[in-house]
């Protein structure tokens, strides 16, 4: 699990947890807004309730991204302070690593919130379906959560890179893809409509983030080939 990558040294753990907390706050605010909207409206009006839910999701996505940006700003200031405090003039953690752990924190908290409720009810003897819902509810929820965690991690990297290098279109891409993924969940229970686009987007984001983090296909292929050449004896030298 990616937690393994951050548990090596103390420096990345704090931003992870801080970012998790920021996500929590963004969820709280967005759910507050949605809750008030629901309470103020007529509960019997189904199309209105559905519309409010869509609005709620939209608002939550935008708020999450806003908090990501806020956190970036905070981190920028923090790194300056860390550099000033450190002995050798370098911060103990680079902005790239910050981007990674920030995205990870976001993703982990989002995943936790998505799954804990489900897990609590999955412990009982029953499964979803008595009202006609799909039996694969738990399985697809688990896969969806996984893809969202990965996506948040990669979005973190992309977003911070975009902020650093003033490439606003990268940030816009993150917001847009987040909206697409969240919006695709409204296709549920047609799970094909939500899982497949999300996974495709996830692979795309993964590739983009890999390239931005300094990896390139040449290295990957070299690595794989290096492995192969290590296992098979070189003909001559």
């Amino acid at each position, binding site marked *: 699990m990616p937690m393994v990558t951050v548990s090596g040294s103390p420096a990345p753990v704090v931003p992870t947890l801080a970012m998790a907390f920021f996500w929590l706050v963004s969820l709280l605010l967005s759910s507050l807004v949605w809750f008030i909207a629901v309470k103020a409206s007529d509960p019997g009006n189904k199309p209105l309730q559905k519309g409010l839910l869509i609005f709620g999701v939209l608002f939550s996505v935008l708020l999450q991204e806003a908090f990501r940006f806020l956190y970036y700003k905070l981190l920028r200031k923090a790194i300056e302070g860390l550099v000033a405090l450190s002995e050798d003039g370098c911060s103990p953690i680079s902005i790239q690593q910050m981007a990674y752990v920030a995205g990870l924190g976001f993703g982990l908290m989002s995943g936790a919130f998505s799954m804990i*409720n489900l897990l609590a009810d999955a412990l009982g003897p029953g499964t979803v379906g*008595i009202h006609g819902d799909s039996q694969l509810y738990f399985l697809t929820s688990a896969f969806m959560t996984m893809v969202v965690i990965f996506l948040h991690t990669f979005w973190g990297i992309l977003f911070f890179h975009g902020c650093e290098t003033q490439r606003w279109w990268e940030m816009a891409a993150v917001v847009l893809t987040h909206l697409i993924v969240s919006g695709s969940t409204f296709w549920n229970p047609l799970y094909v409509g939500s899982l497949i686009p999300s996974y495709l987007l996830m692979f795309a984001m993964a590739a983009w983030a890999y390239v931005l983090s*300094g990896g390139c296909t040449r*290295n*990957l292929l070299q690595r794989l080939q290096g492995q192969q050449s290590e296992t098979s004896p070189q003909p001559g030298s």
Partner: protein
Amino acid sequence: RKVSGGAAGLGPVVGGSLNCVSFSSGVCWANSVERKIYIPLNRTAPCVRLLNATHQVGCQSSMNGDTGVIHVVEKDQDLNWVLADGPHPPYMVLLEGELFTRELMLRLKGTSRVSGLAVAISKPSPPRGFSPGLQCPNDGFGVYDSDYGPQYAHCNWTVWNPLGNGLSYEDFHFPIFLLEDANETQVIKQCYQDHNLPRNGSGPEYPLCAMQLFAHMHAVTNTVTCMRRNSIQSTFSLSPEVVCDPLSDSNVWSTLKPINASRKMDPADEVVIVATRIDSHSFFWNVAPGAESAVSSFVAHLAAAEALHKVPDALTLPRNIMFTFFQGETFDYIGSSRMVYDMERNKFPVRLENIHSFLELSQVALRNSSALWVHTDPVSGRNESVRPQVRALVETLLNSSLGVNVTLQEVSQSQPLPPSSFQRFLRARPIPGAVLADHRAAFQNRYYQSVYDTAENILMRYPEGLSPEETLDYVTDTAQSLAEVATVVARALYQLAGGTGNTSAIQADPRTVSRMLYGFLIKTNNSWFQSIIKQDLKGLLGDEPPQHYIAVSYPVNTTQLVQFVLANLTGTVVNFTKEECLNPERAPGADKEMYDYTWVQGSREPNSTSRVPFCVQSTVHLTKALSPAFELKEWGSTEYSTWTESRWKDIRARIFLVASKELEIITLVVGIAILVLSLLATYFINAKAHVLFSSPGDVAY
């Protein structure tokens, strides 16, 4: 009895907010995932565990509820699937009310393929009758035993309840619930038809519709064990965990001429006691409509009390009349045994020596062609000193029925008494007395102590289209018949008390009887009951038919309502203010020793929402109805009732779908595989990070 305790709630509340859409005005209380999975069954009644000195009876579920695949049994052959053929045991049986018989239950008891039972109440009531009580009710606690009339003991002479199958006194190791709402039963049957029926010749496929019943009882074995555990807990523990409670409540009593309740009666004074029971029971907890077994008798009793109080020379009669309403008679005579015990130990104002005669009203609503039978005790009837008094009592009774549409007849003098509170008094002292009933030998009541002993059982029929107010005052044939019985009783009591005037003026009011029948059998929340209760007891009245079970916390609704009705019918309105009524020592002319003062909220003024409260002066008192076995701490007593009710934490029922084992294992294996895969991938990427991410160009910035 329910114990309140903390239940650990899993999962944060906020997390589900985006999924959770609140449908009602309340806050989103049930997680929406839970609502996708479970359908709770709200209108159910459980079967709980009751214990006596030697046995435990009732039902028990596992600590975390019992789950089973639902199978609907509508005819006998359906049971074979449950017992032998079905491939997915254990099963949760949904039974039609008509099939709820002893044979079927004993077959279910013997198998391990049944994890629970839900009985759908049968509408209309089963035509052949149904009684889960004993064939010989309260056997061993009456007066007939090996010393006193051995040929009458254990129903050797007459079987009183031949339809009794004794189910209420069996011990079941699985939970049994009653489904009171036909709509819920239909939901369950629909789920069964959608998922549990075999398709195309092969067995039913997963997911299957299942039900879970929670009814875990804390007490085991018998009363001796659970009371011992209670006493250990209360002695040694800071927060004692009580496992059972004795069944107890209060008896209601009142006298025609006021007596000083704190002082003992003069030995020369004589009292005629008239008694009825006010409780009933059924197989299920707190479902006890008791129309014929209890309500009919105490309503007639109340009407007779009202009629007697209207008699002009009531206060100058030579003997007093005591109207007694015993609670807990269904469970081996809790109320009457306690009263006799108190009388023997001089804790009650009236002593056994003061009792001149005893008249009891047993089940009186189902009279066959206006016949009312007089039962007397054959053993004391042979006693030389008692015999003439018994004869005189019966003569008085037979004379009181002249001019009323009631044909009083005496049963054979060699027939024993039916189960009655009078038997407890006879155990202490040979008192002349009689029991009035509508049955000559076996009960007329085919639903004795069952869920079907309702207003329908005593043939209370109202015409269509009446408003609640009109229904309250409408005099049914049943009400008329009970009023006639009450008239006979009132006239007989007047003569027994030494009255010499003309009795033809003593008449019970049918309108009062119909109001009481409506209030005690159909709806307690009616305008009359609202006007006679205290202001702060509005929770007493409900819109559902009231249940007359003794329960363990007192006073129950029935006792309180009987108390208020008796006060209203036999008391007088006095002109006190609220302060004076609540504190009678400050009121001029009030006698706190002789009377009881109640401030009732009164009826609503027309075109207004406010009520006109007033003060009622009456001689109504409550006295404790807890079996002497618990006072004496003789929990294994065979002389006094030892019934206790177990405690429990959680009683509920729900239905849901269960997935196949294969799907569950697949889900688990996939999850573990992904976990292992991700660990490996992370380790690999982490280890080779310096190689993978070493591209020149914008890396460090």
